[in-house]
């Protein structure tokens, strides 16, 4: 039998060795010489912190009680790891790019850097982990007690309490020394991880050694062992039960959601490639861990006296066979399992407590003062050390409170279900764009309450909050509130019952509230960053803020320390093209990077709050959102590049086709115009030629006749010149090349000129023109000659085309702030709808009649003149005769400023 003192000595030597390994790893990490301590193997081994004393001792106990059920605890993580490509890879990538420090940090960062969520998850984790830590202390004391049985003169209860206390103190010391040496912006602990890796090797070697001894030392090989199977193990033959599936699911959830697992898998991951090795090596580790569990359980039940604690078979079998060295190794294996779990859990929990509870509280308390008035670094380190001590203290208290509880497994499973409440929000956050902060908060809270009621509180067996009668008969005697049969739902297994209720309600509430609540802008930004993490070349949360570099510098020194700050700021200054020694400009990129670095030390939510506090106008600008949206669009375009390209080509072809059609149309218009022009010119030309030929060829012609023919030629030439002038004029007007003679003129004068020019026409038709007095007295700045040309045109058109016996043309004036509107109405039959469309077209001859001497250019020219005068000429309809509106500015000069473009006529 090993003496207790020898055991203690070996233990101390072993711990000293761990100190040495941690110290060496830290030293190497500082010199950037990583080697073994940063290899994928170390990463994989550190993940084995999953195998706690519960798995080390408890698995054998579970196998002895329930047969193969223990294996589910290993199968869940195996499934998660062989599916690493889908979930773990994404988690690790997000953890590295967003500088995530804990699972609470991840969830809070995803849902808009919410402090509330971070606090809820921190509390949930602490409450869920405390029993788990107590469990490790219990297994430590149990294993010590095996050796101290012969320790006379001491009360066993006092001894175990003392052992637990010393274990807690020692673990706290180790964790504080290596877990809170400095504030790394990546929150990585090379020393601790290396020590954990060494412990992982020890525990697997120990278990395999005991297993080999049992199979070939105690029994005569595998067949002999299998022949010794006891009936109680055989009982559980149909293993596929709701409990089986639930256990696989819970252990799969736990390997992601347990704070310590998240710490080693995501936070301590220094290289994403390590994950690909862990994807098969960690399941292999679990495989080897469980390979000998069943043989050890069978052998223990066979050779040890009835009533021996099956949880301690790993230790007691070698001891009873007088294999002291093997027993010592087995003890160290259990010791390693317990200590590594407690150390990592304490680090993970203390990070969460200090980042998400202490620091926000401190920020809130110092809100009125400058946020840099105290040293954040010191505060963080101190709060972490205190948190570690408090967490281990809680574990110890829980152990004292519940000492003597039954199997180890039940406590572990309760913790699993507790942290599994985070799973819906986590998975939703990674894959579901519409999940919101409110949904996550309410889902987790509801799940947490149901878990506490159906699983956690009943585990105290009536000693804490819920009395035994409440557990048996429901709270206040309400039967539908019986914790193990909520609302009358009777599921035989209490764990399955609790899982269905807590996770079911959690998921339903999470989805429902997410669907009815609207995410804040920052949630949307974070959501797309998390969900599309693999599609983003460089994730950028650009937040528009106004702050000074000095303030950022001071804050950064407080959080990251002088050296790191100097390095960061110099680098940023160089990137911005500044001299070294100058402070960089507080650009969005710089602030975002800085915030990310802060996140590594204090968590995303707190870093966000701190930067937000010194920077005014903390909000995401619309541009930033558009940028994010653009990025998403780019990604989608990238994935469907071929499709897009072919579409683009199609579009280009379509555009070309349209351009071609337009060109053809323009060409046709030009042809039509030319043919019209030549037609118009041809008519007078023909008569000129004909009469010129007559004059040339006819010798005997009377003087009168010669004079008549000559005057026809003369008139036709004038008409031709007039026509050419008009075409030229229209061309000038259309291209804005016309010279305007501007002056302030009384409208009366313009009207008189128009009346004179149309006098013959008016007298012939007997037309009457009514002009109101206000129009006569109106004075505007315009080109009087041009405007009178327009009026002449309109009046003669009205007389010519009006079918009335006695045409009446009525003018009206309306004045506005900057413009005047002259309305001209006649009493004719108006313009038909068919003609209304073409009256402003060149050479338009109205279908009903032929205007003598008109080439159809009058209205187009008038319209162009009014446009050149800064106004519009509009045909507004029939009332019943045609109504034309001339809209003109009071004064045209300001409009001639080239900067103010003249609006073209409709």
């Amino acid at each position, binding site marked *: 039998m090993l003496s207790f003192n020898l055991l203690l000595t070996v233990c101390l030597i072993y711990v000293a060795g761990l100190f040495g390994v941690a110290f060496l790893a830290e030293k190497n990490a500082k010199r950037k010489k990583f080697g073994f301590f940063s290899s994928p193997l170390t990463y994989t081994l550190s993940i084995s912190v999953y195998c706690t004393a519960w798995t080390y001792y408890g698995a054998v106990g579970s196998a002895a009680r329930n047969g*193969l059920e223990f294996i589910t605890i290993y199968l869940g993580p195996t499934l998660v790891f*062989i*599916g*690493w490509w889908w979930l773990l890879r994404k988690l690790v990538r997000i953890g590295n790019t967003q500088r995530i420090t804990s699972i609470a940090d991840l969830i809070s960062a995803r849902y808009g850097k919410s402090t509330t969520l971070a606090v809820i998850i921190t509390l949930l984790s602490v409450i869920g982990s405390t029993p788990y830590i107590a469990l490790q202390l219990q297994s430590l004391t149990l294993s010590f007690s095996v050796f101290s049985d012969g320790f006379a003169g001491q009360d066993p209860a006092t001894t175990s309490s003392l052992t637990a206390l010393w274990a807690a103190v020692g673990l706290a010391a180790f964790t504080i020394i290596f877990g809170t040496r400095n504030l790394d912006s990546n929150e990585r602990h090379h020393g601790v991880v290396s020590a954990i890796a060494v412990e992982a090797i020890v525990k697997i070697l120990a278990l395999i050694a005991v297993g080999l001894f049992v199979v070939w030392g105690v029994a005569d090989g595998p067949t002999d062992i299998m022949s010794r199977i006891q009936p109680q*193990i055989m009982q559980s*033959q149909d*293993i596929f039960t709701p409990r089986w599936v639930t256990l696989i699911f819970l252990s799969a959830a736990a390997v992601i959601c347990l704070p310590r697992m998240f710490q080693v898998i995501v936070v301590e991951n220094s290289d994403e490639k390590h994950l690909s090795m862990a994807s098969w090596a960690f399941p292999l580790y679990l495989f080897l861990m469980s390979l000998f569990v069943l043989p050890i359980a069978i052998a223990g039940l066979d050779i040890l006296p009835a009533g021996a604690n099956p949880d301690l078979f790993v230790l007691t079998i070698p001891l009873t066979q007088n294999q002291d060295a093997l027993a010592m190794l087995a003890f160290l294996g259990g010791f390693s399992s317990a200590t590594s779990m407690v150390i990592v859990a304490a680090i993970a929990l203390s990070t969460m407590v200090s980042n998400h509870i202490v620091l926000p509280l401190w920020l809130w308390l110092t809100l009125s003062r400058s946020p840099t008035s105290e040293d954040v670094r010191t505060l963080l380190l101190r709060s972490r050390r205190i948190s570690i001590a408090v967490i281990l203290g809680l574990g110890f208290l829980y152990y004292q409170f519940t000492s003597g509880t039954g199997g180890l497994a039940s406590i572990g499973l309760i913790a699993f279900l507790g942290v599994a409440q985070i799973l819906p929000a986590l998975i939703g956050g990674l894959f579901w764009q519409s999940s919101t902060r409110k949904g996550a908060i309410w889902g987790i809270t509801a799940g947490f309450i149901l878990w506490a009621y159906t699983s956690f509180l009943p585990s105290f067996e009536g000693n804490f909050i819920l009395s035994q009668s409440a557990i048996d008969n429901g709270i206040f005697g309400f039967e539908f509130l019986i914790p193990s049969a909520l609302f009358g739902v009777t599921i035989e297994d209490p764990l399955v019952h609790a899982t269905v209720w807590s996770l079911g309600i959690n998921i339903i509430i999470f989805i429902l509230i997410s669907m009815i609540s609207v995410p804040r802008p920052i949630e949307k930004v974070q959501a797309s960053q998390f969900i599309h993490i693999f599609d983003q070349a460089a994730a950028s949360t650009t937040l528009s803020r106004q702050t000074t570099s000095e303030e950022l510098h001071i804050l950064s020194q407080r959080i990251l320390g002088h050296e790191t700050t100097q390095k960061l700021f110099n680098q940023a200054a160089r990137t911005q093209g500044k001299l070294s020694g100058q402070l960089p400009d507080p650009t969005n990129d710089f602030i975002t990077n800085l915030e990310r670095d802060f996140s590594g030390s204090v968590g995303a939510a707190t870093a966000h709050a701190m930067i937000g506090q010194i920077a005014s106008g903390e909000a995401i600008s619309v541009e930033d959102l558009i940028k994010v949206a653009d990025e998403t669009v780019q990604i989608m375009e990238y994935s469907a590049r071929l499709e897009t390209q072919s579409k683009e080509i199609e579009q280009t072809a379509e555009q070309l086709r349209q351009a071609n059609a337009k060109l053809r149309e323009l060409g046709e218009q030009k042809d039509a115009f030319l043919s019209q022009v030549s037609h118009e010119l041809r008519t007078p030309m023909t008569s000129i030629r004909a009469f010129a030929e007559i004059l040339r060829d006819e010798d005997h012609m009377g003087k009168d006749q010669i004079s008549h023919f000559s005057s026809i030629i003369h008139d036709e030439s004038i008409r031709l010149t007039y026509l050419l002038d008009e075409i030229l004029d229209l061309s000038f007007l259309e291209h804005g090349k016309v010279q305007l003679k501007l002056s302030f003129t009384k409208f009366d004068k313009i009207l008189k000129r128009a009346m004179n020019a149309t006098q013959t026409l008016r007298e012939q038709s007997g037309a009457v023109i009514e002009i109101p007095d206000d129009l006569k007295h109106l004075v505007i700045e315009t080109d009087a000659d041009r405007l009178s040309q327009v009026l002449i045109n309109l009046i003669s058109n009205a007389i010519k085309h009006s079918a009335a016996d006695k045409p009446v043309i009525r003018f009206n004036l309306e004045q506005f702030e900057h413009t005047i509107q002259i309305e001209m109405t006649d009493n004719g039959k108006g313009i038909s709808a068919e003609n209304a469309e073409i009256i402003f077209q060149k050479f338009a001859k109205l279908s009903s009649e032929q205007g003598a001497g008109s080439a159809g250019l009058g209205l187009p020219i008038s319209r162009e003149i009014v446009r050149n005068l800064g106004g519009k000429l509009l045909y507004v309809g029939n009332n019943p005769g045609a109504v034309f509106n001339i809209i003109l500015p009071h004064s045209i000069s300001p409009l001639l400023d080239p900067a103010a473009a003249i609006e073209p006529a409709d």
Partner: protein
Amino acid sequence: MAEAEDHSTTALPAPQPDEDQSSITQKRNDLAALLPICGILFFATPLISTITNDNPSGIGGTAFYIFSIWALLILAACVLARFLRGAETSGDEAE
């Protein structure tokens, strides 16, 4: 059944140089999903009962079933990890 699943992972087609990059990514992702689905199929469905209940050797047979599937899954995961990492690095270079 386990052998068939293992076979499908080892005999996966090597990415052709002229094959479209996005289709390679798609295949890679599908393949990565196959393994956990197989795992769930073998471990967390009634399949585990139908196979093991017929076994006269009881718990020993069940344990043998679980451990052999487990070992095959680990082997397949090892091969898959190698392939995925290779695909990832070549994909990165292509980008």
